[in-house]
């Protein structure tokens, strides 16, 4: 927990953040090389299947980031660590971006496949709900009025909204609707072929490192702003 001290965190960020960017960039480059030059086209969907390599990792990330937000906010409420709230606040816009990527890439993938832009099945609807919850969360974080009250309120809201995450995950298992059931994160192990699984995981890792890089940058900005406000007030 010592790493959550603001000054030490700033030091850490200044020293190591850039490596995260480099790592993420390289992983993504590797992943996309794999995707475009090695992995096979789907016999039915043709080249459109490659959207999956953006769509699926983004989905994992949008849900994972929300879980991170919920966990750090719990830490904030229970252990009263202020930096935890800053991590949550900085993660929210990034989570929103990934959610948008899921929905938009899904639309472009689904249109040729299903013939429609949108369908109200369980997974799509619950993903849309996630989008709204992210938006609500960001709005609360912007309710800044000089005191720290909004941070606790955002924390409560994010924890309440967490109920949506298992619903997204299991929606395709519970209801047999249009969206494809889980192929990777299953109890029996992935059903997807390794030539598609590996690039998927590489892209996913690349996204994670990029997310971490931008997260650390946002945290740094927030910490510096706090420092500025502190010195003005005292």
């Amino acid at each position: 927990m010592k790493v959550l001290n603001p000054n030490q965190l700033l030091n850490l960020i200044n020293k190591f953040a850039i490596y995260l960017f480099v790592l993420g960039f390289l992983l993504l480059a590797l992943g996309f090389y794999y995707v475009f030059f090695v992995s096979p086209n789907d016999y039915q969907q043709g080249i459109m299947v490659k959207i999956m390599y953006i769509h699926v990792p983004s989905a994992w990330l949008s849900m994972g980031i929300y879980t991170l937000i919920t966990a750090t906010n719990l830490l904030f409420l229970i252990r009263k660590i202020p930096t935890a709230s800053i991590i949550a606040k900085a993660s929210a816009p990034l989570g929103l971006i990934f959610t948008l990527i899921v929905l938009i890439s899904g639309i472009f993938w689904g249109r040729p496949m299903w013939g429609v832009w949108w369908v109200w099945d369980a997974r799509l609807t619950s993903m849309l709900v996630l989008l709204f919850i992210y938006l609500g969360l960001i709005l609360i974080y912007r309710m800044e009025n000089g005191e720290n009250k909004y941070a606790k309120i955002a924390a409560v809201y994010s924890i309440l909204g967490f109920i949506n995450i298992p619903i997204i995950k299991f929606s395709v298992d519970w209801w047999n609707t249009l969206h494809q059931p889980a192929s990777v994160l299953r109890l029996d192990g992935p059903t997807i072929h390794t030539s598609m699984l590996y690039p998927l995981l590489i892209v996913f890792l690349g996204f994670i490192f990029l997310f971490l890089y931008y997260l650390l940058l946002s945290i740094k900005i927030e910490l510096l702003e706090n420092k500025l406000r502190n010195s003005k007030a005292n």
Partner: protein
Amino acid sequence: MNHIVPIIKRDLHIYFRNKSSIFIAIIFFLVVSSILPIGIGPDIKVLESISPGLLWIAFFLSILLNINIVFENDFKDGSLDLILIESELPELAIISKIISFWLIVVLPLVIFLPLGGIILNLPLGNIKQIISLIIISSPFMILVASMGSAMALRVSNPSLLITILIIPFYIPILIFGTLPFIENDIMNFSFSRSLMLLTSLSIFAIVFVPYLLIYVLKVNSD
């Protein structure tokens, strides 16, 4: 226990002073119910098929856009602080305020629900059932909406923010409340199943939300 009746009595007194609170929710509901058919067009069959959802949504909006009144008045003059620190059981005191809101806003709305249903061309056989579903889920709706109101207590124009924050949590209610009445391929979602689900949601809310409300109200108070 002893706080419930005095608080409700006083809240009713105050709401009646501002007569607009009672009527504005009803008028809003009827206005929304009236313009929806105009927007849908002349095809009665189309209107009939989507009317259950429209009724629910008109009801939601009427609640969400009015819920800010539940704590606002007491927050402004410090009575909310009083209730929170000087009550023996603050949770009961807060429930009393929720009950006051229910009596002033939800009850009149419920009385006008049949009229809304008729305007939306809801099949008469379904009106009674949908209204009972709405009534049974009203505790859940009010409690969750008041969470939004508690969170947005310090915002000057909270109604839109409250609506954005709380609508995601209304979606299950919307789904359960309309499935028995519209064409769908999802199993056999009967009215009684819906009734059961919505009742348990309301009970769940009554048991747990007051504690959350106290926490959020205390965070925002002063």
